[in-house]
Structure formats: C-alpha cells, structure tokens
C-alpha cells in the first residue's frame, strides 16, 4: 500500500485513469440478457428431490405436538424434519456488534421448536420425489397448537400487560436491568453534549411523532437452494445469497457441522438488498438431504417470501430539533421504537447513529428501543435502520425550515457536517461530501423550476457509514497474458465490472482481457458477505492489492530475465520496461506470462484483507409530486438524486444504484406496507397487494454524481448502494406535505391516508 499517495494524486486529475470512470459492458451481461445465467432456482442435480416447508398460520402459538406418521407413509416422501431434528444451541451463543447475531434465535427462526412466533414461521419440512407429493405430504402433517394472543405492533408490545413472546427477555442496556420479562429486547442510547440543557437556547423548537410500517426488500428472485450431503458427510450447497461464506458459517452452526465439510457454491443472485444475508432454506435442505441421501431442492413461493423472510422494521420515531432564528441548530433529540419482528435485533441503534449524522450538532440525544412483535424477524434492508430515522429527522428539518422561513437546502447547508465535525455516533468525520451534495442539489435546474397547483417539492438528506470488513482476492495471470480475478463477494449489481475495472487500472491491460468471477467457498479465502456498501470499497481494495502483488511478481520475472534489480523494472500499461538501459526490449504481460514456466512457475497475486477506512456517504434528494386533492393519489413528477460516491468506478452502475435506491424509497414512502389481520395473518402475500412501484408510476430519476474521494481507498471509492434509500422517505413526505399544506408524518402515504388527512383539516 506504499503507493496510496500516488493513487490519491491520480484521483485529483481523473483523466489519469484509463479504465476507472468508464462504463463498459459487464462481464456477466450476455448471460443475463440471453437467459443463460443460472440463478438460485435454475440449478438441478442428478437424483434430485424437492422440499417444501410447512408453515404456521398462527402468529403466536405453542406447538403441542407434531405428527408426521401419515405424511411419512405417503409414497414418494423421502424425508421429514422438524425443529427437534436440529441440534440445540445455547442461548448465549451470539456475535455481538451494532446488530446482534444470535445463533439461538437464528436456529428457532429457521424452524420453530416449542413455539411459533409469526404467520409463516417454518414448523416442518418435507422432501419428496415431486413438488406435488411434497405439498400433499405437507398437508398431512398434523400440528397441534395452543394459540396465544398475537402482539402485532410496538405500541401493543410495549404495554405493561402485553403477552410476552420470549420468557426471560430482559431489556438490555437498562440500568438496572429490569426484573420482569418484556418484549423490549434492548435500549440503545447515544449522547453528544447535553441536549436537554441546550434546547433552552433555542428560539424555535419543532417536535413531532412519526410512524413507518414494515416493508419488504422485494427482490424478484425468491429464496432457493439445492443441498446435497453424500454418504461420507460432505455437503454441497448451491444457493442464492449475499454471501457464500455466510451460508457456510450459519449452516455449520445450525447443523453442528465442521466448515470444511460444507462447500457453498454461489448462484447468480436475483436481488437481495440485505434480505439475503440470512439463511432460511439451506439448513432445512441440508438435513432433508442427509436424511434422504438425495440432493434436495427448495424454492420459496412469493407468498413464503413475504410471510417468512425479510422484512425491515416498521416503527415509531419522535424527533425534536431546536434552532436559533438564523437557522443554526442548537440541539436535537430522537427517540425511536423499531419492530425487531419475532426475535431481537432490529437496526434501531443504526437508526440512532445515522439520523443526525448529516448535521453539525453539539448537543444530541438519541434513544432506540428494540421491540419484538409477532412478525417475521427483521432482516437488513439497504442502509438498515437509517431510512426511518432520516424520515423523522428530515421531516423535522423541513418543518423547521418552514417555521423559520428559510430555504430547506439553505438550512441544511448552514448546518452541514464537514471534515472535522463530530458525528453523533462518536467519530470525527474525515473528508466528506455532505456540503457538496447540498450545494449541487441547490444548483440543479430541478430545484429551481416553478411548481403548479397541487404540486409540492421536498428535499431530504441522508447518511450511511459504508463499511469495510474482510475481503479476499486472487489475481491469476493466464499463460496468454489474460487475467482471472477471483473474489468471494457475490455480484448483486454489477460488481464484477468494477472489480475488472480496478484490476485493469493496476495491471494496465484491457478490461476485456480480465475475467472476474465469484468463487465458491473452497476456491478463495474467506470473505464477508456482500452488504453495507462494502464490495466496491473493500473487495475492490483487495483486488487492487492482489493486482499489485501480481504486478510485483511480473516485475520480478522481468528482472530475472534481464538480470537486473527489480527496482530497475517499471510497469506501465501492461508492459515491463527496464529503466536503467534500453538494451532490454520491453516485455508485455503476454510475453512475461508465456515464459512463466522458465521464471518460476505460474504468476498470480493475492490479498486477504480486513479493510479499514470506509468513507461515509451522503446524499440529498429532491422530489416533486402532484396530489389529487379529491382522491389522495400522489404522482411523482420529477426526482433528482445527488450523492457523494467518492470515485465512480463504473458510473452507469453507480447511477443505477442511486436510481434503484430512490425508487425503493419512493415505494416505502407511498404504498408499500405489511397489512396484518387483527390476529396476525399477513393479508398482502403477493405483488398484487404488496405494492412496489411499477414502471408507469415513475419518472426518470435524474442523478448527480459528486466525487469527493475517500482517502481510505486507493482509488477514492466510498460505496454507493445503501445511502440512496435514506433520503427518499423524507423527500417524498416533505413534497406531499407541501402539496397539501399539511404535514404527513405517517408512512406509507397511501391515498386513503392522504385523503383522510386532507378531509380532517377541512
């Protein structure tokens, strides 16, 4: 990494890059436009049978008995597993981070043991020679339940006499720890300065409660896998996930196996957005395969996806901001309760950490409550925890701007976090682009366009940390001078292209001569999963280092051939040149590769890193809407996303992340929500009534890429995937609020809700 300084200088003048910043066709593209790419459900194995899951339709119940006798007798049924077939895991077995991963909970979420905790909770799984037989057998499994009252909302769950989901759950983070069990898993608190005191200095204070509903990531590909356990206990799993190593680690844990006995082969992944950072089917398929001696394929239906996977937390937030008359923020408070779903672990703490991060505040208090309810266990969803917090904070900022009569972007510019600002979550920001996104937003043509009747404009900002973590990369030089770049990071949105571009930049060879691939768990060292906007940053860093390692290897070979010191070899544009003398004819990568056998064998480079130095991302979005005052229908007229991405490696896919995140956020703001019956059955179990935006709902999404390079990455990469979903909830809500002249603080802003709000004000 000695040349990080050189890289940064290179960023200053981007024209120095040959490949970075171009948008070539992705290496896996042709397979994906011709139908040849293999996704989770596309894999078959010889002798394969099919598994189906039996799910509870009760939201909360004790399992009194499970009788599988009749089902087992059915012809074609090869295996049946229930919770009792899985090894017991100790409740203390967990990994503690910003979000706790409890293997005890994970095991129960994969298949219920004594209790079911939500509509759709897996209770048993059947494998049979056809899907039809498996479904018929599933219907023959007799389960006796003792139905318990369902707890569906954080408000109900926090009531004093609420039915308790998990006996023994004592609120963590409380001092003293409460004696009684409750549905509150934990309390998180973040403090900077003394907010309560500082509010006294405010000329104006805005304060309001906000609500958001449970939403699903909504990836189009349902979860799918094939598992095969051979007679010697060696297992192979083909699956669609955000991390083959994650699948291996979790399956090993839940099935009490040694990691070396499980090989996970990643398929193409048809969308994840955080929802495929967990296992659901893989442990079931593995046990069914072990029991039957046959490969077992399991594919979820859309109904199963909605009932039992994802979603992300709905919840409540109370935001309070105090400011001077001139708009200077003096203090801020945020208190939030997030649904964790059936098991602890909502991203409420991340909400607390991110909400006020775009602003320079000396006095902040954030409190978050993690609350269990009878809904599916929350999974990550793009910038987990941040959108709902930002919805509250950005709505409050908008209200403050209205109250003070200051332009909402001007108010944000005045208070924007800059290099050196102490973030509410503890760090002092290094170089960041918050202010730049705000200024660029203000300068857009969009922001300065006049609006018509019933139209409104909203702006909002957002923050996401971006993360590093463990990544591995191998760069293998083929005998003809072409190169293979192998990583362990599933490609969910074009990252193969970014990896190839960064390798091309270091190696100085054509993008087309590089083949990036996503390797299985036995072909590349461990890597963390794809998530947190880490791959282009962290895995990219590993690729850069591995490519540099390969370049060094090739310089060594050239030095050997020329019999000079390695310092005398310069590498440029894929060619080794001897600096000292021109008697040696420069050698191309192909020439060096061709003589590898004579210079020490195959040429490669590797890097296994735990990447530090992730650079924070900031975004500001502008949204125009028109509201039909008689029906409450909202049309999004125009939308612009401005984002600091550090350096755009592949600008077209960077824009794609910004556009896609914005539209998911618009869906969250307008029409997406989980609708449950009173006793906890999910009512909208398909795309008909779980209303994600369709093509005709959306305008073009304009993008403005801001590039304030991240000093922590050789090419300045920050990470782009997550922050685009943070501002839209607030931006859309602010736009609708301005259009109707009443503040909308309850998501989704579906037509009935908007019309009721308008009518109530009349």
């Amino acid at each position, binding site marked *: 990494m000695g040349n990080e300084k050189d890289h940064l200088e290179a960023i200053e003048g981007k024209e120095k890059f040959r490949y970075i910043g171009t948008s070539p066709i992705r290496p896996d593209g042709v397979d994906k436009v011709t139908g040849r790419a293999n996704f989770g*459900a596309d894999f078959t194995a010889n002798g394969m049978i099919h598994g189906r899951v039996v799910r509870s339709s009760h939201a909360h119940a004790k399992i009194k008995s499970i009788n599988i006798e009749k089902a087992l007798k059915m012809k074609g049924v090869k295996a049946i597993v229930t919770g009792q077939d899985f090894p017991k895991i100790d409740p203390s077995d967990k990994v503690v981070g910003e979000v706790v991963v409890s293997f005890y909970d994970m095991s129960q979420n994969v298949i219920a043991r004594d209790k079911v905790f939500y509509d759709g909770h897996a209770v048993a799984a059947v494998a049979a020679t056809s899907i039809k037989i498996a479904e018929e057998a599933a219907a023959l499994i007799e389960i006796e339940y003792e139905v318990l009252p369902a707890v569906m909302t954080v408000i109900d769950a926090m009531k004093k006499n609420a039915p308790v989901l998990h006996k023994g759950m004592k609120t963590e983070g409380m001092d003293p720890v409460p004696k009684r069990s409750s549905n509150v898993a934990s309390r998180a608190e973040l403090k900077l300065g003394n907010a309560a005191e500082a509010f006294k200095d405010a000329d104006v204070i805005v304060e309001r409660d906000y609500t958001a509903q449970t939403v699903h990531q909504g990836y189009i590909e349902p979860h799918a896998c094939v598992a095969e356990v051979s007679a010697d206990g060696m297992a192979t799993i083909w699956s669609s996930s955000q991390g083959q190593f994650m699948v291996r680690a979790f399956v090993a844990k839940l099935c009490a196996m040694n990691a070396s006995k499980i090989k996970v082969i990643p398929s193409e992944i048809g*969308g994840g957005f955080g929802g495929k950072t967990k296992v659901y089917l893989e442990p079931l398929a593995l046990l069914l395969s072990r029991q039957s001696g046959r490969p077992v394929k399991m594919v979820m239906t859309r109904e199963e996806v909605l009932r039992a996977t994802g979603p992300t937390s709905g919840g409540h937030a109370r935001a309070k901001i105090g400011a001077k008359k001139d708009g200077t923020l003096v203090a801020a408070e945020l208190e939030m309760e997030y649904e964790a779903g059936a098991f602890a672990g909502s991203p409420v703490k991340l909400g607390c950490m991110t909400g006020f991060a775009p602003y320079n505040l000396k006095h902040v208090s954030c409190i978050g409550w993690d609350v269990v309810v009878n809904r599916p266990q929350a999974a990550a969803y793009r910038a987990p925890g941040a959108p709902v917090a930002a919805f509250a904070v950005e709505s409050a900022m908008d209200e403050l701007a209205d109250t003070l009569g200051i332009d909402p972007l001007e108010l944000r510019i005045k208070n924007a976090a800059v290099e050196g600002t102490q973030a509410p979550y503890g760090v002092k920001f290094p170089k960041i682009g918050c202010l730049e996104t705000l200024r660029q937003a203000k300068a857009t043509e969009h922001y300065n366009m006049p609006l018509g009747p019933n139209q409104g404009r909203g702006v909002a900002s957002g923050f996401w940390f971006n993360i590093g973590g463990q990544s591995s990369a191998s760069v293998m030089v083929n005998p003809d001078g072409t190169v293979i770049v192998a990583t362990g990071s599933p490609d969910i949105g074009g990252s193969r292209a970014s990896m190839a571009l960064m390798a091309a930049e270091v190696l100085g060879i054509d993008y087309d001569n590089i083949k990036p691939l996503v390797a299985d768990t036995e072909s590349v060292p461990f890597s963390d999963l794809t998530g947190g906007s880490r791959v282009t940053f962290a895995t990219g860093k590993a690729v850069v280092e591995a490519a540099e390692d390969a370049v060094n290897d090739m310089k060594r070979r050239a030095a050997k051939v020329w019999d000079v010191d390695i310092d005398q070899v310069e590498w440029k544009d894929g060619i080794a040149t001897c600096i000292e003398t021109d008697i040696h004819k420069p050698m191309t990568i192909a020439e060096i590769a061709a003589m590898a056998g004579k210079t020490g064998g195959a040429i490669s480079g590797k890097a296994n890193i735990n990447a530090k130095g992730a650079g924070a991302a900031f975004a500001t979005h502008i949204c125009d809407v028109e509201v039909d005052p008689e029906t409450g229908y909202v049309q999004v007229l125009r939308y612009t996303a401005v984002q600091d991405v550090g350096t755009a490696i592949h600008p077209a896919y960077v824009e794609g992340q910004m556009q896609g995140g914005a539209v998911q956020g618009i869906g969250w703001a307008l029409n997406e929500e989980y609708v449950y019956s009173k006793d906890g059955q999910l009512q909208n179990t398909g795309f008909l009534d779980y209303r994600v935006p369709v093509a005709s709902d959306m305008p073009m999404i304009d993008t403005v890429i801001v590039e304030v390079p991240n000093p922590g990455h050789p090419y300045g990469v920050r990470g782009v995937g997550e922050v685009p979903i943070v501002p839209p909830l607030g931006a859309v809500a602010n736009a609708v609020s301005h259009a109707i002249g009443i503040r909308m603080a309850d998501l989704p802003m579906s037509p009935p809700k908007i019309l009721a709000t308008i009518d109530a004000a009349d």
Partner: protein
Amino acid sequence: MAKHHVEAIINGDPAEFLCGTEQTLLDCLRDELSLTGSKEGCSSGDCGACSVILDGRLVCACLVLGVEVNGKKVETIEGVAKGDDLHPLQKHFLQEAALQCGICTPGFIVAAKALLKENPHPTETEIRYWLAGNLCRCTGYDKIITAVQKAAAEMRGES
C-alpha cells in the same frame, strides 16, 4: 388422468413434452424442457419475469397451462438472440446498464420485443405502461426505459 402429450413450436423448433394439467407453461419450460431463462418471481402474473410470446401475444407463462400450448408457437428469452447475434434490445440493455441483478431481464426483453413489434415508435409513457407488468426492484426502471428507446431507434434504422 394420464399426462398430456404436448407438441409445440418453441423458439422456432418443434418440441414435445408430457405434463400434468396443473403444470403451467412456466413449469413445463423450466422443468420439462430445461429452458430456465424464463424466471418465476410470483406465480400469479404480477411480476412478468416469466413473460413469453404465445402465438404472437405477450403472456405470463405462469398463467398458461402447459397443455394449452399444444399446437401453438412459443417464443422465450432463449430464442431472442440468433446464435451469437444479440437482438438490439439485448445489446442496449447491456450498453445502458439496464440490468443489475438480472433476474427480471429476460421478462423485460421479451415484453419489450412484443412492444416494438406492435409499436415501433413508442413514447416513454407507452413504454412505461406496456412494461408495467414487469417488476424490477434494482434499477428504478430508468435505464430500462432508455435501453428500450435506443433499441427502438436502432430497429427503426435511426442509429
């Protein structure tokens, strides 16, 4: 009832398969004919990932019974490119980065192909409404619309 023997023309070639009544055309394509390019995203006609062209009409393969296609013509994503020669839609989807995860892409390309056959000059609004039955969760649709517009222009001989 015994399985049905179905003969159809799939991507221009004769094909035959056996299927039960309850098997959809999508099941038959994927499981009986190993044509897995048509994807299953919902099985209820709400996502369009299984879009195919049946006797010239765009349909969701999940809402057609396999037995119904006896004697009919089916075009799937596998038949869109002619060998190595990509269809303009495929080329422009690649050039415009109109796919991220790629699971919805086959359905979009088949649906857009049907659109351009019927309407070589679609406006942005016409493209958006025609493709409203194809869900994409990654792109926000923007680049998909652009790719269809550019493919349409190329097919009209304008580029």
